[in-house]
């Protein structure tokens, strides 16, 4: 047993002749937390999938505790004490926590194939204690919050006696508080001597957690060293391979005077209360709030996906309270949902089909048939303009694109409808720095051309970089509004946290 828990040597992998990992050499020290960063498509997931036995590799060796390790399937990895917590959770929502933990390994009553419930509950309680989850093992997973589910996944990893645990973007659907809890657990796992690989685009989190940092770019290991030698700037530069001087575009155009979207006393029981604001042309209006503050729900009400119970939604000075999303689209409103995988894209349709979807109405011929040539022209135009990385947008499926490019497709399909108001909900979630910057510039251009953008986000930096004004939401209410010249990170955060204080003090 040496100091090195895991060692990749000359690992190489290509898909269809295109190399995605080139000669990866990295040693991971036992009991360390390695922060693995890189742009979308840099090869992080592939490297981890190789380790987890999900995909095979071509050349090179992996050594686990000095022993050659060649996994053939996920069970191999589990047997070798490697546990992979995927970005999308793999829990069975119709089963209890205990059943999820022991699904392949139920304790039985002697030799009879009957589940020994007492034993199951006892075992599960032990693992739940390790992750500080004060829940009954019989609780159904569907009743758990995303944060609690994440912790159940961790408990599941512990139940397989994992010594190496991989976290892939574990915080994307967690509230700030849930994230803190997860970090505390990760640190505790670290203290107990487990080796952890932590993948995330949130560089601040990586800085806080990791002992070492490894940067991948285009399938190569660019940089690797102790965390203290890194700064956020150095990480970004290494990841994108060039200095990004200006992630955010200049907001120089003054906002217009024409009110495009006016929300008056909007309320919905249990969701939002008494929302008032006006969005003008050429304005980017930010909405900041913590997870669960009602931001996304507000967007859904504005777009007509959820009913508005009280108040008024004026779109171009016309009451649109009872308009369906379809009618709102016809009136030139667009909505980029926070969940591109499930709501924003048809993953198994081609890039071109996705891009053309909402604009179909404006390319209709005499018999309501789609005019292919005009649609294709528009779709190709937008794909070029947004620099969507796909060699053949007619053939390639949306699911084959990297996260950043997928997001560009979602925005692109709305651009084709030339929206007057575009509501964007977390447009850069799970997107790397380079693509982020591109998305910011696209949004800025839309606004400069006369549209109003309602920019919803939980990343305060991007709102401060992009918006003319920021509204702050907490518990379904707007608790503050700050103009660009008065932007102050701490002040905004304080407002967003205002009503959460009680809970935090007591933890």
């Amino acid at each position, binding site marked *: 047993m040496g100091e090195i828990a895991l060692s990749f040597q000359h690992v190489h992998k290509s898909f269809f002749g295109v190399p995605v990992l080139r000669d990866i050499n990295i040693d991971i020290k036992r009991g360390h937390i390695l922060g693995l960063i890189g742009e979308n498509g840099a090869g992080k997931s592939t490297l981890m999938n190789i380790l987890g036995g999900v995909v095979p590799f071509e050349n090179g060796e992996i050594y686990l505790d000095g022993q050659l390790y060649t996994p053939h399937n996920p069970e191999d990895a589990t047997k070798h004490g490697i546990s992979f917590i995927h970005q999308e959770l793999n829990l069975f*929502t*119709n089963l209890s926590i205990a059943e999820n933990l022991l699904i392949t390994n139920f304790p039985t009553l002697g030799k009879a*194939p009957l*589940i020994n419930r007492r034993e199951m509950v006892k075992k599960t309680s032990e693992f739940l204690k390790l992750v500080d989850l004060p829940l009954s093992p019989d609780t159904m997973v569907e009743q758990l919050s995303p944060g609690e589910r994440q912790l159940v996944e961790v408990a599941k990893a512990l139940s397989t006696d994992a010594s190496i645990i991989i976290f892939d973007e574990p915080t994307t659907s967690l509230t700030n508080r849930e994230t803190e809890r997860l970090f505390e657990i990760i640190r505790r796992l670290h203290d107990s001597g487990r080796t952890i690989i932590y993948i995330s685009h949130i560089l601040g989190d990586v800085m806080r957690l990791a002992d070492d940092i490894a940067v991948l770019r285009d399938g190569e290991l660019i940089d690797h060293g102790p965390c203290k030698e890194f700064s956020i700037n150095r990480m970004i530069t290494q990841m994108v391979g060039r200095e990004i001087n200006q992630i955010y575009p200049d907001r120089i155009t003054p906002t217009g005077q024409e009110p495009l979207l006016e929300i008056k006393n909007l309320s919905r029981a249990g*969701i939002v209360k008494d929302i008032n604001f006006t969005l003008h042309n050429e304005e980017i209006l930010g909405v900041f709030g913590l997870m*669960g503050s009602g931001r996304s729900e507000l967007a859904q009400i504005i777009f007509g996906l959820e009913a508005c119970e009280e108040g008024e939604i004026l779109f171009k000075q016309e009451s649109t309270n009872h308009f369906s999303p379809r009618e709102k689209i016809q009136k030139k409103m667009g909505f980029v949902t926070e969940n591109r995988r499930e709501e924003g894209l048809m993953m198994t349709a081609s890039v071109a089909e996705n891009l053309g979807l909402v604009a179909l109405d404006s390319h209709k011929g005499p018999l309501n048939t789609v005019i292919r040539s005009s649609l294709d022209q528009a779709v190709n135009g937008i794909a070029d303009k947004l620099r969507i990385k796909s060699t053949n947008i007619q053939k390639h499926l949306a699911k084959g694109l990297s996260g950043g490019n997928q997001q560009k497709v979602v925005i692109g399909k709305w651009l084709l409808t030339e929206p007057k108001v575009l509501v964007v909900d977390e447009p850069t979630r799970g997107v790397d720095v380079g693509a982020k910057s591109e998305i910011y510039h696209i949004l800025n251009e839309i606004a400069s051309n006369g549209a109003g953008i309602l920019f919803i986000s939980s990343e305060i930096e991007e709102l401060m970089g992009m918006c003319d004004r920021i509204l702050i939401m907490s518990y379904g209410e707007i608790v503050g509004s700050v103009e660009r010249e008065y932007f102050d990170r701490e002040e905004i955060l304080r407002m967003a946290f205002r009503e959460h204080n009680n*809970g935090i*003090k007591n*933890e």
Partner: protein
Amino acid sequence: MVSKTNNRLILLILKNMPVILFLVIFIGFSVLDQRFFTLQNFDNILRSSAFVGIIAVGMTFVLLTGGIDLSVGAAMYVAGGLVGIMLENNYNLWLTIFAGLLAGVVFGLVNALIITKLKIIPFMATLGTLTAGRGLALLITHSRALSFPASIKVGAVKVLDILPIPVLIFLIIILLAVVVLMLTPLGRQIYALGNDPEAAKKAGLNTDRLTAIVYVISGFCAALAAIVAITQQGRVSASFGNGIEFRAIAAAVLGGTSLFGGVGMVFPGTFVGILLMQMIQTGMVYLQVDGYLQDIVVAGVIFFAIFIDSRRMDLLRKLERRTIRVEKTSDSHLDVKGTQQAG
């Protein structure tokens, strides 16, 4: 808070919709016709539910994995035809029963192989074996209607003077199914598979084996139903088991089993579902509803139940969604602790 308890009540009602629907229709018929609320009638309903009910139990296993078995009627005819031929030729009774059940198991195994090895979706696979199976049964019976002496009709015999044999078998099957689904690793893995096949694979479950098992169970149940039906009807005609798949699927769905897998129960679920259907049919006989109209009414009830079910799922999702306002503490379990201390 008033609205909260209201929601709780609605939730409770919606979650128990099959049972409530059952009670409403039950009371309705009892009021409309006095002959309905009699022991003899209940006995009648149970007895005529038995063999469809057995198939519906097997169907529930298949639906739980997200699959479907359209071939149960054909499996039933194949097993029934084989049993009939063997009875005509005076084979040993127990051997005959064993052969019939084995035929069902083999039938299920064929379905399982087509689905797991040839990767053909269950709908097409079992639609195919439905056609092939009926052909096979016609072939072995030479498309004759087989009739048996009255002594075969043991279906009317009551155990301990209370339970008719078919009902007893039906209840045993339900009990077994409940035990398997709720208390064994196999049962819980079937639920897991139906909930998320991808995750099941990643978790290391042998999904092909699980899939195979549910189709074998369904085939076995169909064969058992054939034997039970023979003891009740005393004959096997060319329409034996015809269209039974619709009634079995409808019973399971009426009882709250989802066609998308992962959700459903044999008891009370499917059990209530099958009784509900049979009750409506019997009730209509008492009310002297036209025979052709009865089919339309039954279909209408099934559509209504499925409609209620989809509305129910919608409402459940809405009601169970976490609210942001109103109770500040219900945001998550984690919050509850902190605020209680604060208060």
